[in-house]
């Protein structure tokens, strides 16, 4: 009698270990970059406070200002302990939890719904892999990333007090785990990874806004308790260290993960819970040009970015007037803010700093919109398009126009929203709105430079077009860190944003605007020259 080895019983988790290893390998760059970025923002905040608020009296003054201003309350929540650790945990607690959440959502969806949508999970699923293996592996990847981050936070903050460091680390890790579970459910709901990411990030944004409303409104503190990010806040690092509050997000995570597993059992591979909506059987009359197609493909993302700029601008404008109370009397902060770009006047300096940041972000939008060209080419969607009577330049022009005009839209939205809330708070809408619109609009040529670099790379050296991301990130970092690190003028001059007039407060000078516009035009011309001559990628 021949004996065959009995097949190993296959459970719904079979294969998790291999998928986990695959996932960690695929994310060996992405996870460290996320962790590094989050840690460096935390520790640079700590370093900044350490340099600025040397005495307990100064810190108490800061805390009184922060707790008395509804805009800062909305942004960061209440400050419970005016120690360096407490201030750092306050400044980065809720905001950091939101970013950790974004990391988790992206990680989980990348390994579940995105894989499923691309059809790769089908290939894997045909092998010896259980139904729940992919989701389990994805959750483990995200949980490991969250735990690693939490431990590093604890180690880094331990110098400011061990209990507070542990609370801060636990808070971020719990946020990572909770939003990984949110991502797991979102991945089951829709067929489309983009939509799933949208749901996940939307939940995070809603949680953040809910706690903002609770923290900033007298008598509405219960709203904070409804928000997952509010729960993280309730841990109160350095201000009570209520670790029990971390049980709330962890319990919610357990429930959500159970729900995600239940949903997996009730759907087919590739399907979602929400049935996809059918589209029109015929194209609208307007869909007849490369520009119309580019608009159709990009409008959703443009509206999304514009909403982000709107919210941020409203907050910045709302805080601006109270900025004097917050830092008042502290010469260090005054110095720093003046160094960070302003010539005079604390509020103006603050606005200039914020506008600088928002302009760099607008530039980031522009690069993203321009590099859509590369995506279209890489996915071979452009081939049938260019086989019609559409020339290459017309095709490029469609997306380029959206990138350039979209950058201006972001700037306009920023100026308008800052002007509205700031103007309302000082009772000068008619004056502040046009002033701030002007202040953001002078940034336009600088914000276009990275777009021009993206187009030039796309035309001349398409394989290197992602380098445009690095360029815009470099400009952003120069603007944010350059003044703090006292980088030399020669280095600062590398960023186009160094050269534009710093309004409000500075003097208007048209020369740099003209020079920058000429540079942008030359970059675009180089890109168009390149695209007319090169092969379309296959």
């Amino acid at each position: 009698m021949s004996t065959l080895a009995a097949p190993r019983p296959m459970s719904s988790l079979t294969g998790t270990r291999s998928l986990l290893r695959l996932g960690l390998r695929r994310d060996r760059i992405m996870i460290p970059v996320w962790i590094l970025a989050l840690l460096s923002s935390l520790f640079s905040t700590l370093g900044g406070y350490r340099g600025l608020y040397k005495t307990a009296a100064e810190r108490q003054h800061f805390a009184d200002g922060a707790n008395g201003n509804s805009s800062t309350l909305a942004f960061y929540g209440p400050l419970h302990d005016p120690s360096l650790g407490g201030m750092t945990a306050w400044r980065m607690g809720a905001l950091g939890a939101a970013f950790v959440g974004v990391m988790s959502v992206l990680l989980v969806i990348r390994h579940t719904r995105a894989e499923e949508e691309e059809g790769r999970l089908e290939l894997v699923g045909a092998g010896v892999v259980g139904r729940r293996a992919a989701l389990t592996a994805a959750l483990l990847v995200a949980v490991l990333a969250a735990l690693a981050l939490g431990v590093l936070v604890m180690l880094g903050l331990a110098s400011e007090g061990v209990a507070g460091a542990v609370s801060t680390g636990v808070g971020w890790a719990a946020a990572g785990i909770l939003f990984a579970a949110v991502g797991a459910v979102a991945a089951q709901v829709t067929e489309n990874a983009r939509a799933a990411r949208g749901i996940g990030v939307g939940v995070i944004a809603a949680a953040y806004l809910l706690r903002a409303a609770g923290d900033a409104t007298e008598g509405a503190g219960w709203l904070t308790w409804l928000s997952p990010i509010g729960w993280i806040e309730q841990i109160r690092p350095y201000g009570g260290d209520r670790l029990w509050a971390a049980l709330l997000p962890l319990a919610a995570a357990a429930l959500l993960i159970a729900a995600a597993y239940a949903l997996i059992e009730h759907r087919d591979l590739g399907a979602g819970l929400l049935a996809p909506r059918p589209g029109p059987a015929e194209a609208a009359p307007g869909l007849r040009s490369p520009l119309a197609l580019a608009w159709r493909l990009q409008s959703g993302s443009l509206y999304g970015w514009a909403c982000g700029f709107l919210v941020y601008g409203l907050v910045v404008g709302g805080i601006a007037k109270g900025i004097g109370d917050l830092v008042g009397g502290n010469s260090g902060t005054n110095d720093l803010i003046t160094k960070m770009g302003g010539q005079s006047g604390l509020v103006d300096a603050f606005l200039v700093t914020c506008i600088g940041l928002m302009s760099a972000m607008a530039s980031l939008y522009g690069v993203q919109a321009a590099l859509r060209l590369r995506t279209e080419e890489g996915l071979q969607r452009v081939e049938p398009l260019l086989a019609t009577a559409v020339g290459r330049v017309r095709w490029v022009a469609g997306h380029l126009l959206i990138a350039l005009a979209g950058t201006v839209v972001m700037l306009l939205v920023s100026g308008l929203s800052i002007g509205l809330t700031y103007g309302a708070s000082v009772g000068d809408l008619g004056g502040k709105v046009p002033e701030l619109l002007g202040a953001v609009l002078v940034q336009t040529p600088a914000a276009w430079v990275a777009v021009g670099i993206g187009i030039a790379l796309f035309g001349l050296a398409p394989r290197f077009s992602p380098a445009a991301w690095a360029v815009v990130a470099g400009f952003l970092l120069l603007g944010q860190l350059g003044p703090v690190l006292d980088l030399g003028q020669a280095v600062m001059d590398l960023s186009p944003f160094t050269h534009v007039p710093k309004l409000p407060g500075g003097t208007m000078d048209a020369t740099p605007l003209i020079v920058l516009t000429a540079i942008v035009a030359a970059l675009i011309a180089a890109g168009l020259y390149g695209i007319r001559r090169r092969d379309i990628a296959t």
Partner: protein
Amino acid sequence: MNTALSVSGLVKTFGRTRALDGLDLTVSTGEVHGFLGPNGAGKSTTIRVLLGLMRADGGTAELLGGDPWRDATALHRRLAYVPGDVTLWPSLSGGEVIDLLGRLRGGLDARRRAELLDRFELDPKKKGRAYSKGNRQKVALVAALASDAELLILDEPTSGLDPLMEEVFQDCVKEERRGGRTVLLSSHILSEVESLCDRVTIIRKGRTVETGTLTELRHLTRTSIHAELAGPPNGITALPGVHDVQVDGNTVRLEVDTPQLDAVLRQLTQVGVRGLVSQPPTLEELFLRHYEEELTELEGTPR
């Protein structure tokens, strides 16, 4: 007869790979021309050069009387293209893609569009991401066939279609030929090429190895014969052009170079024929012969 497109001595290199190595291809106006070759032979590269998506490194290419690179936009108004691997925008419905591509080319026949959607049983309301490979291909086919282009360039257009839809596709191409359109059909499906094409070009490693009408090509290859005779076959093996002879009593199987068929039959009838089965060469054999050469060469190369 006019020439719709002609390519001669075309060379295209990607780094150190020579994708096209002196390729020749001529398609006459009004014909359906089969474009055959194993994977990686250079079919899609040739088509991309013809569409002006790539620039050749050497040789000449002419398309509808113009230069495919320089006059791309003007020429594209007169042709329609179906890529081998159709990718659609995930958020656009199939109907939107058909209309968009049609409008960008300069017009679409609405009646024909409706008819084709019906014949291919394609739901135009589905979004791009929801279509299967076959359905994505149908979207591109409807967009191309509903145009009034004089030249259709189809790059393996049926690789994802089921047999029923393959049938519909063949009917459509036959109608196009009756309507006077020129078709360049790159394909792997030899029965499709045999039933549709007037002439074929076979390429291998970026070079043309055969070109001509199917009849001409058949002439280049062997007919197989299975005969039952009145007595034992004599002297068959000695005839020129006869291969693989197997004699079993009074029956004989053999392969013969088609031009020598006459002599072999004469020899067989001298003995007396009781039964005869003769099979003309199929395109498949033709194709495999070139394929086998490649395999032999591969085996011959030291590793």
